[in-house]
């Protein structure tokens, strides 16, 4: 299995993770968001580079947190721009491939890309918007809940990239 960027001819219509919103996003918006309006990049897990059948996917974007909410000591010397972070907007696995460690492999790739990005453009944290019934899965990877989100929407989760760097390789 390999993980690569979504391509135009990938079979998005047959993807079914059991959640209509996540299926619909991949079918209708992922490619447009990536190539036309540039608001997110989707990575897909496939059997081999040329394969079009998608086992799972995740979508990343860059975002920020306002500079002025942080203590002066923390942002001393930094330009007055939003502090950059990586947004893990979506992550889903095809139902028929669930339980095979594809989510784990996708998360592994999220970490790899995040560290590369941090080195190249600088960013400090990963923020994920998790379904409330999947909070435990994110916590398993060290994500911590960000308190204060609306009870109806997803739970925002936080992972410090320093934690990734502390990992023995």
């Amino acid at each position, binding site marked *: 299995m390999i993980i690569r960027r979504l391509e135009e001819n990938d079979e998005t219509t047959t993807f079914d993770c059991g959640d209509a919103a996540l299926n619909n996003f991949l079918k209708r918006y992922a490619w447009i968001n990536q190539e036309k309006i540039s608001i997110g990049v989707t990575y897909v897990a496939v059997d081999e580079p040329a394969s079009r059948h998608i086992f799972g996917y995740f979508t990343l974007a860059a975002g920020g947190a306002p500079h002025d909410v942080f203590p002066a000591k923390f942002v001393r010397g930094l330009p007055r721009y939003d502090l950059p972070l990586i947004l893990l907007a979506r992550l889903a696995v095809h139902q028929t491939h669930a339980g095979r460690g594809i989510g784990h492999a996708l998360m592994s790739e999220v970490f790899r890309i995040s560290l590369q990005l941090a080195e190249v453009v600088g960013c400090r944290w990963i923020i994920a918007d998790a379904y409330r019934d999947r909070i435990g899965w994110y916590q*398993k990877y060290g994500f911590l809940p960000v308190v204060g989100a609306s009870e109806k929407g997803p739970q925002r989760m936080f992972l410090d990239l320093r934690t990734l760097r502390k990992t023995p390789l």
Partner: protein
Amino acid sequence: MPVAHRKKRNAPPAEKRVRNAKFQADLAPAEERALRALKQDLQLRSNTDFLIDAVALFRWAVAERRAGRQIISETKSGERRVLVLPRLERVAPELQLPWVEIEWTERELQSLVELATAPEPAPPTPALIRAMQGLPK
């Protein structure tokens, strides 16, 4: 003579003439030895020729990586090695994420500040360690 005088006036001013750029580099002895060895291997006589060829090679590598292609060396038996040069990765399209506006509630921002400014980050969990090491779950 008037004609000669006109020619002189039409010549470009000295400061506008195109000049070749000059480079000076401070190299450690080991780097200098490597440079000499490369020049010898490639039968290049001057540093200028070396720089021109090096720039051409680098330009090609940047263009390939910018187009999303990887640079791979392959042995006759099919063993492959991928060139990963951190500076080159800066132009890789897979490393360019679009910027989106994130909506935060005030309470979320307060919580984010608490998490982000912790003197020590949370220790990595076993699942995170396995993911980072490329091991299965």
